[in-house]
């Protein structure tokens, strides 16, 4: 359902960035999302038109090439050029979302071996990066704000971890809620870097989003 909501554009920006990054890193769900986007195009094409006001003025504004929309006023985020052949730690969707490169993130220690960088909190949604020491065991949420519960989606950016549901590596998404055993173990060989989005107001819908069923 995350994939369908992504294709439909109904995800909150933090979740959209997470799913977009997953699709960049891993190919297995791209076809399905592309198909749903085609379905979106078909539905758009088939929809009953609602005429715009001032059609002629709108057209000439576009042809004048002097549009007055904000996209021309604001400076866009300009990611630093990348050395050829080096895959950046942050996929484009995440860099565009946080408007920073990974090196510019500021970390604070939550517990020994666990550092956090919160990038957004709004509408009950919290998006953060986590750095977890290799081999660390932790109950995913209880170490942090225990009042913040609900749906939690984790994207692995570096290293890996395992929990009761499975094992996750770069590009994988783990979905969890209160009902699940939250104990996780970071892989022993490398520090793990994770992007985590939590929605305290949302719960998993039955078995629909569990496990690999995104």
């Amino acid at each position, binding site marked *: 359902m995350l994939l369908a909501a992504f294709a439909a554009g109904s995800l909150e920006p933090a979740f959209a960035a997470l799913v977009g990054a997953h699709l960049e890193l891993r190919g297995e769900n791209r076809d399905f999302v592309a198909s749903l986007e085609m379905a979106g195009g078909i539905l758009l094409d088939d929809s009953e038109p609602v005429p715009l006001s001032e*059609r002629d003025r709108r057209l000439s504004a576009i042809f004048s090439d002097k549009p007055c929309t904000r*996209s021309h006023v604001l400076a866009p985020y300009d990611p630093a050029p990348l050395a050829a052949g080096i895959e950046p730690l942050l996929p484009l969707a995440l860099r*565009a979302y946080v408007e920073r490169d990974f090196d510019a993130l500021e970390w604070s220690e939550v517990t020994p071996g666990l550092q956090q960088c919160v990038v957004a909190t709004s509408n009950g949604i919290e998006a953060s990066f986590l750095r977890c020491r290799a081999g660390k065991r932790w109950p995913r949420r209880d170490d942090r704000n225990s009042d913040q519960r609900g749906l939690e989606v984790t994207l692995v950016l570096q290293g890996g971890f395992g929990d009761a549901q499975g094992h996750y590596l770069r590009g994988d998404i783990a979905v969890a809620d209160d009902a699940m055993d939250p104990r996780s173990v970071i892989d022993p060989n490398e520090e793990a870097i994770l992007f985590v989005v939590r929605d305290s107001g949302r719960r998993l819908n039955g078995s629909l989003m569990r496990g690999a069923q995104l």
Partner: protein
Amino acid sequence: MVGSDKYAPLMMAVAQHRDREAFTRLFDHFAPRLNAFLLRLGMEAVAAEEITQEVMETIWRKAALFDAQKSSVATWIYRIARNRRIDALRRDRGGLFSDDDMLAIIDLTPSSDDTLDAAQREARVRGAMTALPPEQLLLVRLAFFEGLTHSVIAERLGVPLGTVKSRLRLAFTRLRRELEQSGIRETE
């Protein structure tokens, strides 16, 4: 749109010759539909028109980036509008956006062993959609493309919430299966 995309040549004319007449035809077809689409997603009338305008401006400026091999014009425009709408949510928290944000389309080109072109793939998606029973297609439409919550759908259709959820799950599973059977693979 099945088989060939009649809007693709118009996009080419815009990309190559800044053809205003071709763009006007694209505008007259897509702008009112984008407007309708954004209104259905619950946008205010003024905001829907503003975003439609921004998307159409982007299409005028970035027509050269359209690739008929990868998608139909409708799907390309749909994705730009979808991304733009997400950016509108970001703007609420003070984020910046740009043409490039709108065009930040992940390359969803099918894997290399898939030899279908965009038009063929699209025909199959259309086929998979029409293979759904009407009440399931309606639910997919309401839930995924009109952004309605399950409880609003239940209220609107006058059926219990549980029924909405189970029908949606059926529809979604079936859509996946139809797509897989028609050659659009999805690996778990």
